[in-house]
């Protein structure tokens, strides 16, 4: 067991867990933040995607000991009011079916748009290939990312 000071969604939190604990379980079990999901545990499905300093990472395969001072953003902290362009686009395109993968999809999409505000279909393929949607909502995910990009472009 060891103590870690983490920065989660702009807040400092202290946890005491064993160093090999994946960030995913620290978020879900220790901090009770269950928006980030578990799907495979081996960085294959993307359900556990969070941002580490704006980059999409798979929290199931990131030991808490390696997080350090990096800023963690989870789906709960992506926006204050649930109005991140990606979140709004997800509702408008009516993306979710079961919804389980969608937190991870949204985090990957948000990281993509941060890096590439106007992504091509090819960019979307590459950035989203790590996120499985078992319900098969890929078409709407693509639509929603383009819509969010258009919205962002319009705003800024």
């Amino acid at each position, binding site marked *: 067991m060891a103590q870690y000071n983490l920065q989660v969604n702009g807040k400092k939190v202290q946890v005491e867990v064993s160093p090999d604990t994946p960030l995913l379980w620290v978020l879900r079990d220790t901090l009770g933040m269950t928006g980030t999901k578990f799907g495979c545990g081996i960085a294959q499905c993307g359900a556990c995607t969070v941002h580490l300093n704006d980059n999409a990472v798979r929290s199931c395969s990131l030991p808490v000991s390696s997080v350090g001072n990096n800023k963690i953003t989870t789906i709960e902290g992506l926006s204050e009011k649930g109005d991140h362009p990606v979140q709004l686009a997800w509702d408008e395109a009516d993306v979710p079916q*079961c919804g*389980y993968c969608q937190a991870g999809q949204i985090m990957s999409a948000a990281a993509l748009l941060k890096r590439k505000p106007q992504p091509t279909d090819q960019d979307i393929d590459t950035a989203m290939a790590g996120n499985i949607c078992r319900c098969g909502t890929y078409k709407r995910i693509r639509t929603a990312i383009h819509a969010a990009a258009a919205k962002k472009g319009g705003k800024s």
Partner: protein
Amino acid sequence: MSASIVSRRSFLKVSTLAGGGLMLAFNGLDKVLAGTVAEDVLFAPNAYIKIASNGIVTLMATNPEIGQGVKTSLPMLVAEELDVDWQKVVIEQAPLDTVKFSRQSAGGSGSVRSSWEPFRKAGAAARKMLVDAAAQTWNVSPDECVTENGWVIHKPSGKKLEYGALASKASGMTVPTEVTLKDPKDYKLIGKRIPNVDNKKIATGKQPFGIDTKREGMLYVMVARPAAFGKKLKSFDDTAARALPGVKNVVSFDNKIAVLATSTWEAKKGRDALKIEWEDEVALESTAEHQENLKKLTQQKHEIPKRTDGDAEQALAGAKKVLESVFEAPFLPHAPLEPMNFFADVRDDKVELYGSTQVPARVRAEVAKALNIGEDKISVGVSRIGGGFGRRLQADYAIEAAKISQLAKSPVQVMWTREDDMQGGYYRPAGMYRYRAAIDQNNELSAWYLVASSVNQDNASRQDNFPAGAIPNFRVDSHRLNSAISTGPWRAPNHNFLAFSEESFLDEIATELKKDTVAFRLELLDRAKSNPAGKLTYDVDRYKAVIKLAAEMGKWGTPAGKGIFKGFASHFSFGSYAAQVAEISITGGKLKVHKIYCAIDCGRVINLSGAETQVEGGIIDGLGHALYGELLFEKGATVQKNFNTYKLIRMPDAPAIEVRFIDSNENPQGLGEPGLPPVAAAVNNAIFNATGQRIRRLPLSLATLLSDQVDRNR
């Protein structure tokens, strides 16, 4: 629309809410579903309306939401007839309650088909009582009153009252025995695009799923289960596990060992630290021997056919030419993205169960039996569910959680890893399908004989599927191969593979007869109508209409772009007709599916957005498994353990999809499944058009084209 007579006065129960609102519960309306095909209709769910005095209308979502959209579409039915403002409706997920509701489950594409009548009638009855209440208040005739968006309006005077203001009075009104349903042309919700009611919560991480269940004092559990089908527990040593931080308890039952800890990770480390010896209980099975045994069975006639019209054997014996093809289906895990998990808190006097299940009533009944506790002591809460695909029709994981809670005397959340889930059983069974077709002297298809074999299934066929009815000599046999590997329903059971084999084989026959594959199907359907052989379970005209629409959408008969090849397939399942055109290309030995056009007739569409996404998702699901899905066994253990080796379709492989619904006034039919079956054959037939070679096993592998050139004309 004509008035529907509700004969049973008892169908509505009225009570007044604390705070003076109107509450209507309705149960057990007639389950008559005119025009529905009685295939797997298992469910006649009921609903629940609450109108608060502040005008907020709460509609209960009675059925488990697994991504099929019923949490949105079923309340829409009530809201339509209630004539309420959808923006003001609150949807609440109902727990299992067999007194208030009847069947609460998700499966067989049955929720909307069985709710279409009763849910609308419930909305209409509530509306009538609100109108009566307003009429009484104004001392006017109810006939002079209309409703709009949650208001009752007295037409002659223009007086208005909101439902909320009428709720208390309405609860004293007589329950109508007769309700008038809306004329469909007046629908404000049905047929429109209504977004999933949980979208905002899902997009912000606030929507809990079963796996997110937390309770005071709860422990997280990981279970060591037999590492292979056919093995049992010999002995174990938990000394090291118990010494680990966070591990609170270890219990063993039913050949399993459960480690309870204060977090999922600690439970997993505890489980990893167990020293376990397994021993073989029965012979361990492998894929190679399944295949061999299944193949053997397809060579045998079954004494009792599943269907027989004319004499297929005789027609085959006298044929000018016989075509024969064998199609192979692998095992498939359901692999919903939310792995199995369940919460249980078993006390002496009561049991709380909570989580992701498609069948809460079954869970309660089976847990009651397993624990020897009365059902009345058990509550089952239903969370939003991270996918089911049939896996959550089983109660095994809930029973397991309950047993652990009972043994350890603690509330528990049992967590399955993906590897646990993959080895966890209840798979789509492997099977083999041997087809023979006779071409007679007139170059007509005169006989069709399918001999199917499948693991743990008495009938791996759907013997009445088209082209049954269109062929004078027709026979279907099905053999069972027993296995220790557990199997169960998987999205569109049997249809999910049969559409591949039937529609690929029909394509082979069309090619042999030098006929266009679409024209050939239409010709067969005409035959089925003018001169049916045996019973027909599908509507020829509706079948033809989707085939024609898909052909039109995919510009069948005109060449696609350079290097693009088309394929066609159609299938009828769960009351709905689907036809698809696939556009593919093959470059450098790699298959790319560019676009799928899908025409579908599911009767009336309830929620256009939800309906479309079901079909899109079904196509992606069917395509993904056609491209990659294969669970192999080696000595009773799955070879694939997680998504690195068990491949699922991802974004770069997802084709463009265009879906069109036949405009229909027919009763709504199933939609969670029917979009899936045709796609594998549509793609396979396109592969033939591109390469001149046939693939007869899933997953589709272009590599087999070179090594596996089975001559179809034996």
